[in-house]
């Protein structure tokens, strides 16, 4: 898994153009990690930074591992997989995706969401921020909703023009249902149904142009 993650990261770094490089927080890593693991983590972080990927989360992932007393191999694996997920998120969301979107997209991918779901989400909301939809998507999966259903739910909500507050309310309602004992798939179906029924026109995010041309898309 670790080698696959590193391979994916290296492949993605090779095929993606250079953008901007974020400063690497080398001092913090060296202060917290052993010299050997710090060097190895820095290789991965610098490679990502050279390709314009946001490295703040990668550095934080390494520091989190140190605080959790994780083995060195686990820390390097986590940082490598984070880099690979960021690269894959950029491939799926497009080169114009902002750092927060890439971080949220990487989290979704690491949670098991397929890459094409990120692309579908971008198509459903081509201009607005995808951070909240991706956070909601990751949360649904983390609570036991199958990734394909969680993806189709959030994409359907976005296609229907649901704005971020509506998506957050849906997440909360689904969570409450799951806490009450409902199976996550059923809770999610109800959450989406309620969202589609309650989403007021004023709350709605502007629909994508493709949807407007077709007179709107139903989920």
């Amino acid at each position, binding site marked *: 898994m670790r080698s696959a993650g590193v391979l994916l990261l290296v492949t993605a770094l090779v095929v993606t153009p250079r953008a901007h490089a974020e400063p690497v927080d080398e001092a*913090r890593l060296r202060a*917290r990690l052993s010299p050997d693991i710090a060097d190895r983590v820095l290789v991965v972080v610098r490679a990502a930074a050279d390709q314009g990927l946001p490295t*703040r*989360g990668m550095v*934080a*992932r390494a*520091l*989190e*591992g*140190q*605080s*959790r007393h*994780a083995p060195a191999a*686990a820390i390097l*694996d*986590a940082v490598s*997989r*984070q880099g690979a997920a960021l690269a894959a998120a950029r491939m799926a969301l497009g080169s114009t995706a902002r*750092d*927060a979107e890439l*971080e*949220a997209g990487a*989290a*979704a991918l*690491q*949670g*098991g969401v397929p890459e094409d779901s990120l692309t579908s989400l971008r198509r459903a909301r081509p201009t*607005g*921020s995808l*951070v*909240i939809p991706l*956070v*909601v998507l*990751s*949360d649904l*999966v*983390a*609570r036991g909703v199958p990734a394909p259903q969680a993806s189709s739910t959030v994409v359907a909500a976005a296609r229907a023009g649901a*704005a*971020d*507050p509506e998506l*957050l309310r849906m*997440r909360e309602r689904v969570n409450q249902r799951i806490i009450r004992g409902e199976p996550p798939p059923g809770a999610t179906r109800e959450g989406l149904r309620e969202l589609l029924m309650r989403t007021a026109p004023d709350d709605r*995010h502007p629909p994508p142009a493709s949807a407007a041309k077709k007179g709107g898309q139903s989920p």
Partner: protein
Amino acid sequence: MDEDDRLTQQIRDAYQRPLPGEDVARARVLERVRREPVAHGSGGGRWLRVTPLAAAASLIAVLALGAVGGAAWMKARTGARAPGPATLGIDGQPTAVTFVFRAPGASHVALVGDFNGWDPQATPLRRAALGDAWTAEVQLHSGLHVYAFVIDGREWIPDPSAPLAPETGYGRRNSVVVVGEGDAL
């Protein structure tokens, strides 16, 4: 305490112990009470017949509802509140975000996240004057932040009121807060 006193105490203790199958019997009684037809305006001027058994069952039901409600309330009290999944922020300017966590019985609560290097010593929460609430205010820049609470230096737990982040190799999930992002703001 003589023999009679000991016997009396044993009998008293025996009565105070729950009976085997008491829960099942209580459920049956409640079910029968629910099915009991309500008599309206029948003879004798009584509109509702209440037997001693039904009265006892009703009392038990009220107490049970109170206990369930109380438990739910207590559970809610142990959860964290704020900052919520999305918080208003101004581009380029850090935003003060207050984290609140309710941890009955805890002697120390700390906030760890990508904003403080996941350092359990960096951001201790302060216990409120009353109750079990612990709070900490943190300046966060716009973007997505991942965090957790550390109870008594040992247990890392996510914020029960916030979206979850995926498990990323360290065995436990974290929570997510978004500052200044999205059209929620």
